[in-house]
């Protein structure tokens, strides 16, 4: 790891405290060699209104997705993107963004598919940085293009596909959407646009733990004890479990993937990025409606 971890006490009880940095730490380390700060937001213009000085922008929509197929960019394109952004393979990358780091966690998960070793989140994201009165800049940073090796994406460990989810029914499944989407009252998050799922409900046996339960009011992550109460006591997850999380397109569940993997220390967590926009339109997959997880179909 290029730069030492943030020793802040509030991270000490997390499984991988080195995956989070505080505003104090980041402000102190801005400009350090080997550190690149990346902003990833839902709103594509937010970076232009002002960003952490020196931060580069990566847009999840136009830069991390393949423009034609529903998939992520490949190893060659990822290398090209990171070279353009001036990020080296052994750099410490700190990602932050709007909405309690919802999209920042998504970008972090995509970086993890390519095995970028040291990638962290700024706890609390934009909102907390702003609330603490820390500096913003509208200057575009001078980027020196880097060398970044072509590393193929590894979809086998932290990404799940539809057939794998089908086989996983009855094992720990976390649906991180809103209760209305889970029960089948609607196919999209309240106040979000329709994104083309034909049927509503959830994958049989999934537990509903809306992603934002992991975030405190100021956008930071809740404490290890509070998170354990939600996911272990509440959703019944146990050490050694193989877990799949899903939402609508895989972004909200990236946030939960981060919590389960890096804050609570589960070591077999996959994100089903096809999520409800795939499952809810697929032919002949089982769906349960209502507030209860429901039963696995008899086969």
């Amino acid at each position, binding site marked *: 790891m290029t730069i030492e971890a943030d020793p802040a006490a509030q991270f000490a009880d997390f499984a991988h405290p080195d995956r989070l940095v505080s505003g104090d730490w980041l402000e102190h380390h801005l400009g350090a060699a080997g550190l690149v700060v990346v902003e990833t937001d*839902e*709103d*594509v*213009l*937010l970076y*232009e*209104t002002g960003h952490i000085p020196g931060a580069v922008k990566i*847009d999840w*929509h*136009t830069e991390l997705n393949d423009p034609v197929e529903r998939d992520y960019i490949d190893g060659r394109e990822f290398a090209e993107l990171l070279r353009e952004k001036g990020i080296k393979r052994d750099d410490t990358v700190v990602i932050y963004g*709007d909405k309690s780091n919802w999209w920042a966690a998504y970008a972090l998960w995509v970086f993890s598919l390519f095995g970028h070793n040291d990638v962290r989140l700024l706890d609390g994201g934009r909102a907390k940085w702003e609330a603490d009165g820390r500096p913003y800049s509208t200057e575009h940073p001078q980027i020196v293009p880097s060398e970044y090796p072509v590393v193929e994406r590894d979809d086998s460990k932290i990404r799940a596909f539809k057939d794998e989810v089908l086989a996983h029914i009855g094992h720990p499944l976390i649906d991180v959407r809103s209760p209305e989407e889970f029960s089948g009252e609607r196919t999209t998050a309240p*106040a*979000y*646009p*329709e*994104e083309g799922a034909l049927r509503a409900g959830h994958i049989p046996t999934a537990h509903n733990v809306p992603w934002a339960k992991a975030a405190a009011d100021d956008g930071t992550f809740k404490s290890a004890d509070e998170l354990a109460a939600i996911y272990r006591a509440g959703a019944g997850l146990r050490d050694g479990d193989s877990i799949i999380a899903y939402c609508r397109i895989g972004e909200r569940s990236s946030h939960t993937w981060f919590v389960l993997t890096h804050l609570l220390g589960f070591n077999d967590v996959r994100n089903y990025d096809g999520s409800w926009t795939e499952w809810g339109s697929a032919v002949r997959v089982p769906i349960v409606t209502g507030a209860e997880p429901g039963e696995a179909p008899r086969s």
Partner: protein
Amino acid sequence: MPAQLATISEDFHAMEQRDRLQLLLEYANELPALPEHYREDPTLFERVEECQSPVFLFVDVDDDSRVHVFATAPAEAPTTRGFASILVQGLEGLSTAEVLATPGDFPQTLGLTALVSPLRIRGMTAMLARIKRQVRERIAG
């Protein structure tokens, strides 16, 4: 297409991709504040459900059949503010017939799809559709 909308579109197309975002940001910053007499009556406004941020619209047709669009969107949603501002300014003072004749795919022709993504631009398309519907309702009166 009405000349003032065509001008906006030409301005975007005349720019390099990266500068187009700056122009959109300028529009976001220029979204006019609501006139005092509308601020007190939030029930006048219609929420654009298709947008991911809370954006509200209201269309006024004056005695000369000229259209005035009013919109609010939060500062933390500059893209949405920019879209609303383009429509508020681009449609300002047009006749009802001109607004209704505006191509429904105007948002897709601004030269922003590669930069902003088609999904986000859908919100602007929905705003335009809602504006036109409100114009029709005002005419039907």
